[in-house]
């Protein structure tokens, strides 16, 4: 059965008819001078964070190698896995926007690395994410709707360990390396960009085959603990963070304040998630680099519904909402904008 969320089904046509495609989204009014300050690029914060990220990957990976065979390897690979399979997601995301660094090639390097770690083709997912920003939570248009109505709970839970995404990614990888795109991918990847998809897939396939070959030759899963494996055993935190973004919120509404959550998180989570907890702010102004989002949050405070004080608070809302949607798919979380906020104008 074709999903209601298919990009090539009836909902895609309906969204177009309703004028929801490429719509005029609400944006708060921020003086140009202040916006220019907030958009300004700088290499320093991301160089520091990337050095910490790669340094911790190297350290935890080395300790894991040292302790391999003993229980002490478990916490080492837990750290390595989360830095790879969860922090890789936020690095992929931010670098894909090109905002973390002033120097473009640095963003590109981190983007390629994050894409490889998360098993997302850098070209397909760049275009997919472009669409997610154009048509956030517009049914039939947004390829990144994680929690559908009703939710596919088994898939969501399986993905805490990549058990849906990884097999799909591997099958897709083989298809791409053979020079094929899916029908959905073809709706948003322009023909002139497709050769990049096929080239990347062939390189990645070789890397994975070498890792698998090494595992077979040595009779140990150790090589796969470093390459590919963390997308399974270390990916749970990116799901935990990611579900807070839009799960249970309003679909087909051209105002990120009503379909997106901003959630306060501790320093460690903000490091791993690269400040994407300021998600309403990110959607409203994708030009603002991750390290300026806390300031943007302050700037927008009067216009936004209150931020959730913790991950726990977000889950206390989203879990019941998603469960409610299993019985009643029309249910969603209605956010109240504060008194004095610029009102949402229905399109």
């Amino acid at each position, binding site marked *: 059965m074709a999903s209601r969320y298919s990009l090539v089904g009836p909902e895609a046509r309906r969204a177009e008819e309703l004028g929801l495609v*490429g719509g005029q989204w609400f944006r708060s009014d921020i003086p*140009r001078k202040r*916006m*220019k300050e907030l*958009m300004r*690029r700088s290499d320093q914060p991301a160089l520091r964070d990337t050095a910490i990220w790669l340094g911790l990957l190297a350290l935890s990976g080395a300790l894991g190698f040292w302790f391999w065979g003993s229980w002490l390897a478990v916490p080492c690979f837990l750290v390595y896995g989360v830095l790879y399979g969860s922090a890789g997601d936020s690095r992929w995301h931010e670098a894909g*926007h*090109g*905002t973390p660094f002033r120097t473009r090639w640095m963003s590109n390097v981190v983007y390629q690395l994050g894409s490889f770690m998360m098993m997302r083709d850098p*070209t397909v997912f*760049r*275009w997919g994410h*472009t669409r997610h*920003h*154009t048509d956030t939570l517009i049914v039939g248009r947004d390829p990144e709707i994680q929690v559908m109505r009703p939710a596919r709970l088994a898939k969501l839970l399986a993905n805490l360990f990549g058990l849906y995404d990884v097999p799909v990614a591997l099958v897709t990888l083989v298809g791409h390396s053979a020079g094929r795109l899916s029908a959905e991918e073809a709706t948003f990847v*322009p023909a*002139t*960009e497709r050769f990049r998809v096929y080239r990347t897939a062939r390189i990645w396939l070789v890397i994975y085959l070498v890792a698998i070959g090494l595992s077979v030759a040595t009779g140990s899963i150790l090589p796969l603990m470093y390459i590919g494996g963390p997308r399974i055993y270390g990916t749970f935190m990116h799901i935990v963070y990611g579900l807070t973004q839009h799960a249970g919120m309003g679909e087909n509404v051209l105002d990120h304040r009503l379909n997106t959550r901003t959630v306060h998180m501790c320093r460690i989570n903000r490091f791993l998630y690269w400040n994407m907890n300021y998600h309403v702010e990110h959607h409203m*102004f*994708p*030009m603002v680099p991750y390290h300026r989002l806390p300031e943007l949050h302050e700037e927008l405070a009067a216009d936004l519904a209150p931020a959730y004080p913790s991950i726990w608070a977000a889950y206390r809302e989203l879990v019941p909402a998603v469960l409610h949607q299993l019985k009643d798919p029309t249910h969603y979380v209605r956010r109240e904008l504060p008194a004095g906020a610029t009102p949402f104008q229905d399109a």
Partner: protein
Amino acid sequence: MWIPACKLDDVDADDVIGVRHDGVDYAVFRSPDDEYFATAGHCTHERELLCDGLVMDGEIECPKHLGRFSYATGAAQGAPVLVDLRTYPVKLEDDTVYLDI
């Protein structure tokens, strides 16, 4: 046809403003060396006003998907923008920027 677009001082150095004439949007740029340029007002990828974007290193970045164009030549600099931006000749007279549309 030359039209008056804005005053010289309406645009900060290394920045852009949006100008509307006859229902059509244009973007007027001033480089760090006080040269003026003009392009179409909307991104070629999707209908987004470029004047809300970031001007940096001779390029304008669209505020929605961050596609980049050279504002002097209109050349698209890669995904997600693949179609060049239309540019318009500019002349300065007295304290006014004129565009040839």
